[in-house]
């Protein structure tokens, strides 16, 4: 069923009785060409692009809970491609370009809103680093704009310019950055994959990965064994747990990242703003809630909830940079589990087991990568060679000494 304003209008006239289910609820078949473990954003987009771009549709996406229940359903919705390193930036720019055409592509309004993202800087050294980054973005075909204090005073008069502990000296904009209605991304991809024949199987937990003679043969699930010659892990946050079923240890730790939303407010923020002297970034949703976050809690956790010190740290950053939000109230906080990798960058790669593929290690940057991650993973699954923008996202890079460390924090995951 194709969605359109006309369809909404006609359905409205007839009591909204003619809408079709957005996806089927199929029973698992005994065998597929490809099994994707995890119906989160990346898993669903992988299935979508496999079907749409690579013509492969005999695919099952297995989901332990409900579709979109991973980090696609609990993030702060930001898209951007303001990376710096050659192993990253072309990939994220590819992703941003996919975002820009996404809604027309999958006929679902995910509210891709290029409202801009701004990273504030507070020192000359930070400015130098942002200039380096902005220039790298240009070299990769992305956009960047350096703003000085005077410009920011005009555009964002509510920032604390005059009483700040760390005065704002300027910022790096990416005007094409912005936000997306995160759940709708999962639904749009799910709908697009389902309509092309992909089986999305919810409430189907993978309990084992079958390997024979170094090659994958299928998976065991809470709904029985399912065979496949290709199995694609796509469970960021739980990568360690799933990879352990195949006997793998990963360069990843699972950490909790909290996120926050305020009560609904009339529009106050134009785009995404990131404070450069503390842990705070914020945007405002179309419903009016300020959606904000900061740093991870910092300890290994699979608990999807955090603790007070980070809540307070984030609020302190918020009040330091925009003291007009003091009377806005935190409505809800939640936690997501992040695959924190050893250099802060992800993996889209084959594993040492034939037919077993790995996608993970997205740290807290996975949402913006959803389209490109799915596309590149589909490329790898379909053709067995990496997509040109994802050639560096290899599991063996640490052994080789090829680090993609944007923040320069080294092999300590909780610092990325």
């Amino acid at each position, binding site marked *: 069923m194709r969605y359109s304003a006309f369809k909404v209008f006609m359905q409205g006239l007839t009591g909204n009785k003619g809408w079709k289910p957005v996806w089927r609820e199929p029973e698992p078949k005994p065998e597929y060409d490809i099994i994707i473990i995890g119906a989160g954003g990346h898993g669903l987009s992988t299935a979508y692009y496999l079907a749409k771009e690579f013509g492969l549709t005999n695919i099952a996406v297995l989901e332990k809970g409900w579709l979109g229940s991973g980090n696609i359903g609990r993030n702060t919705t930001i898209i951007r491609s303001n990376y710096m390193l050659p192993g990253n930036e072309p990939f994220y720019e590819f992703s941003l370009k996919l975002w820009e055409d996404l809604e027309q592509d999958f006929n679902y309004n995910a509210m891709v809103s290029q409202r801009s993202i701004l990273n504030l800087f507070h020192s000359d050294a930070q400015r130098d680093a942002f200039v380096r980054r902005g220039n790298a973005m240009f070299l990769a075909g992305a956009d960047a704009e350096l703003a000085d204090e005077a410009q920011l005073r005009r555009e964002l008069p509510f920032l604390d310019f005059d009483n700040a502990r760390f005065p704002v000296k300027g910022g790096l904009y990416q005007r094409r950055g912005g936000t997306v209605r995160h759940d709708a991304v999962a639904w749009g991809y799910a709908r697009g994959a389902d309509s092309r024949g992909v089986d999305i199987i919810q409430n189907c937990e993978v309990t084992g990965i079958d390997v024979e003679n170094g090659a994958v043969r299928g998976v065991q699930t809470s709904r029985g064994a399912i065979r496949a010659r290709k199995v694609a892990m796509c469970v960021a946050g739980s990568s360690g747990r799933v990879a352990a079923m195949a006997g793998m240890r990963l360069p990843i730790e699972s950490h909790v990242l909290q996120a926050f939303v305020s009560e609904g407010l009339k529009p106050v923020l134009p785009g995404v703003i990131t404070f450069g002297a503390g842990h705070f970034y914020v945007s405002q949703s179309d419903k009016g809630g300020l959606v904000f976050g900061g740093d991870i809690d910092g300890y*290994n956790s*699979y608990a999807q909830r955090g*603790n007070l010190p980070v809540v307070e740290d984030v609020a302190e950053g918020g009040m330091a940079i925009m003291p007009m939000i003091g009377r806005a109230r935190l409505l809800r906080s939640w936690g997501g589990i992040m695959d924190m990798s050893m250099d802060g960058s992800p993996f889209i790669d084959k594993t040492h087991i034939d037919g077993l593929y790995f996608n993970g290690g997205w740290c807290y940057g996975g949402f913006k990568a959803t389209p490109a991650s799915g596309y590149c993973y589909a490329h790898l699954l379909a053709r067995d060679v990496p997509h040109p923008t994802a050639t560096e996202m290899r599991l063996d890079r*640490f052994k080789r000494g090829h680090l993609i460390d944007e923040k320069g924090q080294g092999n300590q*995951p909780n610092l990325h």
Partner: protein
Amino acid sequence: MIINHPLLGPRDAAEFIYLGDASLIDRPGWEDPDADEKFYEYGYLRDNPAGAHQELWYHEQGDRSWLVVTRNTLSHEITNVELARDVAKSRGRDR
């Protein structure tokens, strides 16, 4: 979170800095024949269990001791706290 420090009693985890898996104590020998491989595994690979996890915390705003805390990563329940120095010694580390 509250960490029950073996010498100081319960303290808010906010006083501590987290490092990671307590296997970081087991630094390989640099002259081992397969030192490259061992250091790679030491530096980069983690068990990352969903369950009991032995991990290193540093009491920076306290007595500056490194602790080995056994904590469940699903429930956050802490079942054991030891001085890392004692753990390191018991694992044969010396000088």
